[in-house]
């Protein structure tokens, strides 16, 4: 069985009198260790698909199985526990807590695990080092550049060592150099740590980092390239 399995997944939204179907009977498999890139124009349902396989939304119909767990079978509490253990999420906007330092932001997910302060410190230090921001640990988000904020967000996503990283346009707001740095980090995480990465983007340059690229169009998936 693949690491991620979507079978016949349909998601609908009602907007006024209109019913929008961003995902229509989508079936998809992603293997462990893939750097899966989802391309598509704005409003094509990329983010919706990401939400479904990260367990923060539920489909109207169909089945989502990640790491052997059918997400539809979990109630909100256990689903939150599952997310803490299995998913690291990187948003287009970093979404750091503005009143906490970089260190405290990265530490946040670790409060959900039975770890000592020393163990948490060790993991946070490693995560910040991995994104090259060990020397910015005491800085508040407003004291960091956009690229640095996104790297802190990435450190927060990997600090609990989840097997799946999902990233929603993680370089969308960054300059070229910062985007390169983030994408290189993703590639290293996939190659060196065997993480499964699912990244949404509409940037072909960013998509080039993936091992598999799929286009989403009008609620349907179209395979584009595999390396």
């Amino acid at each position, binding site marked *: 069985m693949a690491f991620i399995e979507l079978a016949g997944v349909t998601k609908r939204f009602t907007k006024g009198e209109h019913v929008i179907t961003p995902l229509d009977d989508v079936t998809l498999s992603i293997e462990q260790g893939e750097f899966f890139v989802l391309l598509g124009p704005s409003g094509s349902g990329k983010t919706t698909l990401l939400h479904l396989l990260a367990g*923060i939304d539920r489909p109207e119909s169909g089945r989502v199985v990640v790491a052997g767990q059918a997400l539809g079978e979990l109630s909100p*509490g256990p689903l*939150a526990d599952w997310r803490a253990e299995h*998913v690291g*999420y990187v948003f287009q906007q970093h979404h750091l*807590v503005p009143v906490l330092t970089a260190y405290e932001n990265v530490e946040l997910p670790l409060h959900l695990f039975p770890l000592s302060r020393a163990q948490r410190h060790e993991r946070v230090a490693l995560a910040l080092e991995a994104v090259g921001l060990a020397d910015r640990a005491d800085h508040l988000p407003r004291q960091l550049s956009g690229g640095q904020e996104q790297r802190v967000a990435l450190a927060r996503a990997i600090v609990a060592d989840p097997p799946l990283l999902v990233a929603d346009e993680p370089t969308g707001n960054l300059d070229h150099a910062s985007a390169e740095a983030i994408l290189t980090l993703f590639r290293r995480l996939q190659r060196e740590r065997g993480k499964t990465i699912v990244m949404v983007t509409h940037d072909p340059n960013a998509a080039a980092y993936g091992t598999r690229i799929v286009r989403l169009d009008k609620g349907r998936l179209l395979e584009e390239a595999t390396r």
Partner: protein
Amino acid sequence: MRLPGLARLVQANLQRRLLRSLLTLSGVAAAVALFLLVESLSAGLDSALSGGEAARTLIVYRQNRYCPQTSFLPQNEATRIAKIDGIESVLPVKVFLSNCRTSLDVVAFHGVPAEQLFATRKIELIEGDRAAFEQRADAALVGRAFAARRGLKVGDLFRFNRLEVSVVGIFRSPEPIEESLVVTHLETLQRSAAVQQQGTVTQFEVKVRDPARARAIAEEIDALLATSTAPTDTRLKLAFLESATAELRELLSFGRLFGVCCVLVMLVLVGNTVAMAVHERRAELAVLRTLGFRPSRLARLLLSESCALALLGGVVGTAAALATIASTHLTLGVEGVMVTFAVSPLLIAKGLGVAAAAGVVAAALPAWNTTRAPIPAALRGA
């Protein structure tokens, strides 16, 4: 999330909008302070009506008179009353007040025969000399509440309205209302230029041996004096106090309504702050849920923030109320009955408990709504 992490986040979020937090805290503090002042006055009144000797003490008062300044009874009637079977003692008391109406700074003199005072009233000197009181005609014993209010100490002269006494002792009493009195020699008070009522007293305090016979004895006293120049109305001390403070109790029941309004204001203040904070942070809270924070953990976070804010306000308000009571030593006097603001650990706990409860109630709905909102919608709202 264990406490240190949660506490850090609570602290950081309260500091995030420092001015708003401080304004809310000030509002809660004011509400708790007012609530406690009203409650402490109610407690003081309850305490005034709960003296241990009240059940076997009768107050003989001039019929159809309500203010001590207008109740005159011939002092020598004490001898006739004392002959009634079942009576342990009769204490003639001349009362002189600065103000008969309800007032926040009443001065109340009780003139009593010096040789009878310690045998009939359970007062205990905490400073000064009993012999000095018995020997000097101008001597006065001052209740500790009044001494604190007026800054009096042994050796001071206390002048009030053409009446001058020398403070020779400060006393405590199991009956709180007595601690706001100035006790002088009966004859001194009767002769003073301010009173000039020799041979008359305001009331007799009668102690009966058997509390069960108190009502019957009261009727006997009134029957005995029914045809005298000064017919009497004798009541149990408790009933007398209740009657004297009836208006005050009515006023306080309105005051308690005011206290409830204070709690409602607190609720609205904290609720508004929490609702605004939650609205501003809906995306942040959705991110925390995405990271794996259970809805119950987030609810706990919001409730903790709200409670911390309300409790801090509660602590400041309680401190303000206690400081006000301690620094002013206010006593509410009505028809000669002195009611002090009574503060107890229970009352302080009540104030803080009300603040904490307001914090929980105010945050409950925003917390419920936030933790149940779909995460994608909350993220889009960023």
